[in-house]
Structures are given as C-alpha cells and as structure tokens.
C-alpha cells in the first residue's frame, strides 16, 4: 500500500515533468520562462524536491524490503519455470526500478546540478534574461551516448510503469474482475505514451528538428 501511494505520487510527477518538457516544442521562450518560473518558487521548489526525494526513498526502501522477503519465501528455486500470465515487466520491477534510479541520478547530475557537461556553464542567458534551458537540452541531447542512455532509461521507466500504473489499483483494492483487464491495458497504453512523449525530445534533437538558439 505504501508502494502504491508513493508510486501514484511519482506517476503524477512523471506526467507533470513531461508536460513541462514538451514546451521545448513550443519554443525557447516558453520552456526558459517555465524553468525560470520554477526557480522563482524558491523555498517552495525545495520543499517539492525534498518531498519527491522522500517519496522515492520510501518507495525504494519498502520495495527492497519486500523483494528480500519475497526471495526468502522460495529458498529452493524451480529448475524449470515457465510463466502463464505474469508479464516480463511485472516480474522485473526491482531491476527496471533500480536502472531507472541510476538514470535519475545521472539525469539530475546532467541537467539539474549540471556537472557532467562543462559546456552548459558557457551558455549565455536568453534575450529575456532567463537561463537558456532550451539550448542546454539541445546541446545535451546532441550527444548520441547521452540520448541513447536517456532512451534506455525511459524504456525501462515505461516497462516499470506498464505494470506499476495499473497495479496500484489492485493494491489499493480499487478494482474488480471486469475492471482489472481494462486497467491493465490502460496502464500499458499510458506507459508507452509516456515513453513516446519523453523520447520525442532527444529524437527531435538528434534529427536536427530542434536547433540551439545560441552558438557556444
């Protein structure tokens, strides 16, 4: 239940973050203004960050505990095991989750703390005096390895959500026999929409559809 509730909070963050990021397609002024707006929140922004961090920590701590208990529940493994209904995603939530965690750490170092790419320090403010998030994202994603790792990270996030975004209904007891298969399908569609939404940004940059507004 704790996993379900923290998971829902994180799903809302994933949706909100996607909507924020997609503003790159509207233009540099939009996304730069949006990020300035977030920074202007000041202490409130830090409150949100701490809340999200606590949510992530609880989500992971509880699931790791569960995973250890669950492994203990079957001390002798099957030699031959085949699954009838359990999906790959549902059986590998810990693995996909931990890789997503590694991705998040890199992502924060890359775009939030900005320590992995020295070029980001050279970026000048945009004409409106905001930090040029737009060009930062474009320069960031022009590197094939960086974009590749983002797409991999998002693929695993989508895999994680394809189970997680419908599974929490069951944990909270909010479904029945008829609703479960529909929610499962809806969860999978939702997860892959998230994947398409997020990856559209590095893909657009790699194809040169989105260009930086300033030269370094």
């Amino acid at each position, binding site marked *: 239940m704790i996993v379900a509730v923290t998971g829902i909070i994180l799903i809302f963050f994933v949706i909100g973050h996607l909507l924020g990021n997609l503003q790159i397609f509207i233009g540099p002024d939009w996304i730069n203004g949006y990020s300035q707006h977030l920074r202007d929140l000041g202490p409130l922004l830090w409150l949100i960050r701490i809340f999200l961090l606590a949510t992530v920590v609880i989500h992971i701590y509880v699931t790791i505990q*569960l995973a250890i208990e669950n492994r203990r*529940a079957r001390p*002798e493994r099957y*030699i031959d095991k*085949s699954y009838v209904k359990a999906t790959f995603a*549902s059986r590998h939530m810990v693995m996909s989750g931990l890789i997503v965690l590694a991705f998040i750490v890199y992502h924060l170092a890359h775009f939030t703390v900005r320590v992995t790419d020295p070029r980001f320090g050279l970026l000048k403010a945009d004409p409106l005096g905001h930090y040029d998030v737009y060009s930062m994202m474009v320069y960031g994603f022009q590197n094939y390895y960086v974009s590749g790792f983002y797409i991999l990270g998002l693929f695993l996030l989508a895999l994680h959500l394809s*189970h997680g975004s419908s599974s929490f209904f069951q944990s909270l*007891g909010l479904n029945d026999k008829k609703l479960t298969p529909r929610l499962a399908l809806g969860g999978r569609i939702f997860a892959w929409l998230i994947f398409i939404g997020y990856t559209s940004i590095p893909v657009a940059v790699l194809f040169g559809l989105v260009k930086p507004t300033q030269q370094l």
Partner: protein
Amino acid sequence: MNFLLRIWRQPNAKLRGKLVDYEVRDISPNTSFLEMLDILNETLVTGGTEPIAFDSDCREGICGTCSLTINGEPHGPDHPGAVCELYMRKFRDGATITVEPFRVGSFPLLKDLVVDRRALDRIVQAGGFISARAGSAPEANSILIPKYDADLAMEAAACIGCGACAAACPNGSAMLFTAAKVSHLSFLPQGHPERESRVLRMVSVMDAEGFGSCTNTYECEAVCPAEISASFIAKLNREYARAAVQRGAGE
C-alpha cells in the same frame, strides 16, 4: 505414446534432491498424468527401486491434494484444472517432461514430490470460520442475501486449497488462497461477526508463515484449478484496509 520424464527425487527434507530421468513407453493418450506416474511406479517397484512419492486423493479435481509442477507450471499446462485432470494427450509424443514439487519455503518438502501444506490450514485456523448458533436450524429465509453477493461468495468458496497460487507466484505468496477464504465469508452476513478480526488475523498468520507478498503479477489466477479471480485479492486489500482503519480508530 512415449515420454522422457525428469522427476525430482529427494529422500527427505535433509538430503539434497536432484532430477532423475525415467523413460515411459506405450502410454495411452487417455491416461491421466497421475495414472502415468502409477504405471511408472509399478515398473519401479517390480525393478526393486523406491517408487516416486507424490500426493493425490480424489483424482477428480475437487480435493486439492495433487501438487505437481509440470514443465514449470503448477498443475501442468492444461489450465484450469488440477494435475489429476491432466491427460497425456496434452503432450507431444516423445516429449521431455520435467516434474518438480510445489516450491514454496512455507511448504517444506517431505519426500520426492510431496510437500507439507499445513501452513494453509493454519491460515484458515486463524479466522476462516464463523460463529454459528448451535441448536435447531433457523428458518431458511430469515437471512436475506443479494444474489450478486451469494454468487461472489460461491466463486471464492470454490478454492480447493491446493496451494498452486503460492507455487506459481514469483514471490511465493499465498494471497490468492487467503483472499478466497476471507472474501468467501465476508460477502455473507453469517461471516460478519468476525469480519475485521478474521482478515487481520489471517493476514498476520500468512505473513508469519513466511509466504511472500503480492506484486500483482496475476500468475496465481492463471494456474488456479478453481479459477479463483485475482480480483479477490483486491477485495482482501479492501477488507484489510477497512479493518485496519476500524481497529486504528479503537473499535
């Protein structure tokens, strides 16, 4: 039909087990899986070898005693149905078939393919009962039950307690079993006096027995011979939350 069987042999809980190969020949396609094992055991006994120990009782799919994992699936490939309802015509001629016991930590292995499933009985003892007035039978129509609730209770009551749900679960969780037992009684007014204590005690005994937790993979409902739906687990979660809130509020 001919088959190559790879069967788990383990003399007792302490010694290590291993898969042993056996060949069976000229098996009728209409032989049940358990009959095929009987035929194999007869040849083993004639040859002076210890026969393969496996559980079975009614052999008509209602007792929940047979408990084999065949090619990695509890009760074999013919779902829904218990192993006793599985026929050799389900397999290709000449197929290699792996037979293992139900592997769950809470079901300690006794011998070969026989495991001790009394952990499930202890879950039922914790709350799978109702308080009934002893004495003459009450008037049949004095307790009204909506048809829908009666149907759901009946569906949950179909559980034969074989433990395939826990055997199939990637986490070795007995949630489907416990959910069926809790739901069955909580849908009916006769089960209401112990409604809160039942779910809290049965879940706590289930955890204490060392079963894993549910991660909603629904593998349990796929192998259940009684077709118990995993939506009863959602019902169990609701019942548990409701009881925990009431208990927390001091009722």
